[in-house]
């Protein structure tokens, strides 16, 4: 330890090192999402969280999920007005960090309220796309 640090509380030194490391990481990873909601794994439940892309048109919300190794028959899809839930089984086990994963599972919060009963889904080459029509929630305005 340098002379400069002599006489200082060890916790001050650790705190300073921690701050320096955080500054380095913030500079290096500016823009990278560290949101826990964006985790790709649920180690406890042994489930993978699919990579997801959400887009919107005037009429619909489109959710696209990457679920390689899943079969069409194993996909369970449910939707409410504001959430899409997907669960799918993989045709093989995948091991990361000594944990075996067999399923995909994810709840996707939708950016607009939708009509779940009119949702449509397609599945091709391990990519699932769900199109959910937006719920119309306005009052008609008369033009005088």
């Amino acid at each position, binding site marked *: 330890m340098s002379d400069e640090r002599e006489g200082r509380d060890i916790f001050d030194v650790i705190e300073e090192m921690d701050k320096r490391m955080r500054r380095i990481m913030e500079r290096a990873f500016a*823009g990278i999402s560290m949101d826990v909601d964006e985790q790709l794994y649920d180690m406890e439940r042994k489930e*993978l969280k699919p990579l997801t892309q959400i887009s919107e048109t005037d009429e619909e919300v489109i959710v696209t999920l990457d679920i390689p190794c899943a079969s069409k028959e194993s996909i369970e899809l449910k939707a409410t007005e504001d959430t899409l839930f997907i669960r799918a089984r993989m045709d093989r086990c995948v091991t990361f960090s000594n944990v075996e994963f067999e399923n995909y599972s994810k709840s996707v919060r939708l950016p607009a309220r939708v009509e779940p009963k009119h949702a449509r889904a397609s599945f091709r080459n391990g990519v699932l*796309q769900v199109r959910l029509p937006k719920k119309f929630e306005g009052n008609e305005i008369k033009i005088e």
Partner: protein
Amino acid sequence: MALLAEDRSDASMKVVEYDGSKMESPYIFIGLPDVGLVGSIAVSYMIDSVKMVEIGHVESDLFPPILLVRNGEVKNPIRLYSDGSNMIALISEMPIHPSTLQEFATSIADWFKRMRPRLVISITGIPVQNRLNIDKPKVFYIASDEHISSLMRSTQALVFEEGIIFGAYAAILKACMSRDISTLTLFTQSHLNFPDPFASIEALDVLNKALNISIDLNELREEAEMIRIKTRELMKQTESMLAEPRLKASPTFYG
């Protein structure tokens, strides 16, 4: 391993070579994390398929303090490989942050210049909204001169006629152009933020024909789904980098 050569030793970023072996006019292939990880997947597969050996890495204080562990061995995230004959490959297993792109491109292009390459080949993706419905993604190219364009005519690749290139590949292309290095850049239609090994297959198929090389693509086809799962983490990090404000500012993609 002994470090026999360090390029730009005064720079904040440098290429470190493990031995001094020189090759005659090599092809240099670049696969960096970008749209659909098309280049990363293609060049990683090429390294395994041709059984290339690691010949160096890129290091810098500007990079985050990351080392990878592969089969118990510590690896730098940005590495150089060679087949010992006429092929060099550059891959990165971390997205290159926009703030370091310029320095990265300059250091790499300086090193390329010293290698006297026959051609520097960049492989990347070009996002298309209806990728889900495309069975055979198209490959577009930009060639630095007429001779390379003539090689491409034996393939089904199309000229990239109009559009905008940004990010790591644009920086490298600019740095190579200013050093008079011949370049070929391939853009394959792909998913934006899902790993797309099928796009990588199309790019490698074009290179097989154009350069008269023989990368066996069967294993990549068979392993494509597992590769998609194994590269999710890198795709997620890359997606965040692609969403950086300075990159987002570019108005459109081509395709």
